[in-house]
């Protein structure tokens, strides 16, 4: 298992130093130092408002940080945002898909935006991967939440990103849809770096190499999963969130 890179010999997919983000007087992120090894999977936990979504949005270059720096595959995010975005796939709470367009039309649009070559073939591949081939010409508005999330995942994988960012992708999904989603992510994972936020220790722990617990915009805890089990992670989470709450 690869893990959050603490040694300089490991190639890093993502490196943040002193990352901060303020919204007026509210500091959503404070001095986040993170190193994520290429090909590893990092799970980010934290209570609501801890800064998980803000972190993902900054890494996806949707949001600009107030302070600090982000390196993605050795490139400074601030100066190379467009180039870096072509390496990233993003799945968020919402699908980023247009309700009036079909699954195929949505994917075709995003394939154009990402400059995917041989669009038709690739769209066919990702639709098959997520098991939505038969519904490809149906409008998104006719899909269930689980189906929409599958197409959202297809959208994120369309351009074969080397880094996949998932912001609570489990939101609104039933157990079956959840299993299908993680199965798809693993099936299509060819050395990809994955960073995801979650509230489910049970589901996240088996699939990640490292965990980080965010609390009020700070990293309260980080550890490799090989040194953790479910109970110790839950206990750490309680300690981190209660300690700050006092």
């Amino acid at each position, binding site marked *: 298992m690869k893990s959050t890179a603490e040694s300089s010999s490991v190639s890093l997919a993502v490196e943040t130093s002193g990352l901060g983000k303020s919204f007026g007087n509210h500091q959503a992120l404070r001095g986040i130092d993170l190193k994520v090894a290429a090909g590893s999977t990092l799970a980010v936990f934290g209570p609501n408002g801890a800064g998980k979504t803000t972190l993902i949005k900054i890494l996806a*270059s949707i949001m600009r940080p107030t302070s600090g720096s982000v390196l993605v595959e050795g490139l400074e995010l601030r100066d190379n945002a467009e*180039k870096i975005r*072509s390496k990233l796939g993003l799945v*968020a709470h919402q699908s980023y*898909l247009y309700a*009036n367009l079909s699954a195929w039309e949505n994917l075709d649009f*995003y394939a154009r*935006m990402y400059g995917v070559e041989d669009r038709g073939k690739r769209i066919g591949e990702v639709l098959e991967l997520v098991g939505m081939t038969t519904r490809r010409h149906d*409008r998104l508005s006719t899909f269930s939440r689980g189906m929409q999330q599958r197409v959202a995942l297809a959208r994120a994988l369309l351009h074969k990103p080397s880094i996949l960012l998932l912001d609570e992708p489990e939101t609104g999904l039933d157990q079956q849809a959840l299993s299908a989603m993680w199965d798809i992510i693993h099936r299509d994972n060819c050395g990809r770096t994955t960073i995801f936020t979650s509230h489910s220790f049970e589901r996240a722990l088996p699939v990640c190499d490292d965990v980080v617990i965010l609390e009020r915009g700070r990293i309260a805890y980080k550890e490799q999963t090989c040194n953790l089990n479910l109970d110790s992670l839950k206990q750490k989470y309680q300690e981190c969130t209660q300690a700050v709450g006092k």
Partner: protein
Amino acid sequence: MKFWPRVMAIAWKDILSELRTKEIISSVLVFAVLVLVIFDFAFDLAPNLMLEIAPGVLWVAFAFAGVLALNRAFIPEKEENCLEGLMACPVGREAIYVGKALGSLFFMLLVEAVILPIFALLFNIAVLQPELIVVTLLATVGFVAVGTIFSALAVNTRARELVLPILFLPIVSPIIISAVKASALALGGTGWGGMTSWLSIILAFDVIFMVVPFLVFPYVIEE
């Protein structure tokens, strides 16, 4: 990165989505035709007086129909937070602005192409004049260019139907006033010579309204 293919993808996506629902086109057309019909019944004037009032009526219909259309321009991006999806794409924020503006320009021109013959019928005025078409095209470009950025600003506010006209109409009024004046001259048969000053004003505002939003748009959508 390839700027124009992305811009055209965004514009085409908007057009395709609108052709499915016809939400913007149908509501805007009904509104604009109603405005023309109401003014037609309200003023029962001699033909020479009609020529003085008609350009104003035409641009009232265009302007308010345009506000209606622009009000809805960013709503599809708000649903399912698609704007974030666009922002995550490997393309400059400016391409999003240009793509959205081109989509809106297409709808506006389409609506104007339908309104003009109805206007001609109701007011008994010949509209197939190159001068009027050029004025309409140039004024619509400026109208949409600045309207798109205000639409992006307004979409995140609670009272967006109020915010857009309140912010946008005062800013765009130089273009509307110039368009009314230039249209009156065009319909009066003055020819290009008499319209130069009004066309220059429209062109100048077109340039300002294209350049400034292009530069400002990334900041508008990011925070």
